[in-house]
């Protein structure tokens, strides 16, 4: 039997990789994918919890996270397209219009 901790650590590792990607990549699409990665990390831990605690609530949460991820991807990518129209670039360091 694999201990629950292992799954949680795996989840933490994937999450950290996602954080790293989000913090360091310049391409906004990859940044977005890093976000998806983090969501998936959370999903892993939720499913693991659900399995080990013998409760379906974790999986229900995963279900909602997937829904929200789909919505987020739709909106986020639409924003990317809208941004790309104005800037013709996908590099976030070229987008600093919000500068104070």
């Amino acid at each position: 039997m694999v201990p629950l901790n292992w799954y949680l650590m795996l989840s933490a590792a994937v999450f950290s990789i996602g954080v790293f990607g989000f913090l360091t990549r310049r391409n906004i699409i990859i940044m977005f994918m890093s976000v998806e990665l983090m969501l998936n990390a959370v999903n892993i831990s939720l499913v693991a919890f659900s399995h080990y605690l013998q409760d379906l609530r974790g999986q229900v949460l995963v279900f909602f996270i997937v829904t929200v991820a789909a919505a987020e991807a739709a909106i986020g990518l639409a924003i990317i397209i809208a941004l790309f129209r104005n800037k013709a670039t996908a590099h976030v360091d070229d987008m600093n219009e919000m500068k104070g």
Partner: protein
Amino acid sequence: MLPKLFFGYFAFAIIVLSLLVITRRNPVHSVMWMLLLFFQIASMYLFLNAEFIAAIQVIVYAGAILVLFLFVVLLLNLREELLTNRFISAWPVGLVFAGAIFAGAVSAVAAFVPNFSGQYTVDVINRETHTKALGQALYTDFLFPFEIASLILLIAIIGAIVLAKKRMRS
């Protein structure tokens, strides 16, 4: 032993694939590695007796969200950007932050031992089939969040259309 071996394989594959996703220069390649990653995660869900979630993982994540990513990548056609730097210059800072988060998380879960047993044991799920059990949970206890989720999707559809719609040249 065998379960641990399988877990080891999945853990290794997932981590390597995650790293590949965030380090590839070409976004299309990133998407492809991510596709593989999703498959690994879905298979791992099968080992956790969550077959419906595994199916959802493939259908929604791989079949819909990632295709969306692929579409956008293809639509923007970023070939010229392949020549520039992948990472921001201060990437070590990011590494430190990510490492810190990892360390924090690991230290939090290292000693975690589950001690609660709910009603959905493996036997119950196998008897009732996972999909049915999940469906029952979704449509009774979680009906309200379920409806909200549908609303979110609706809003997302409208929002995406409004955002990405081509404005008529007037």
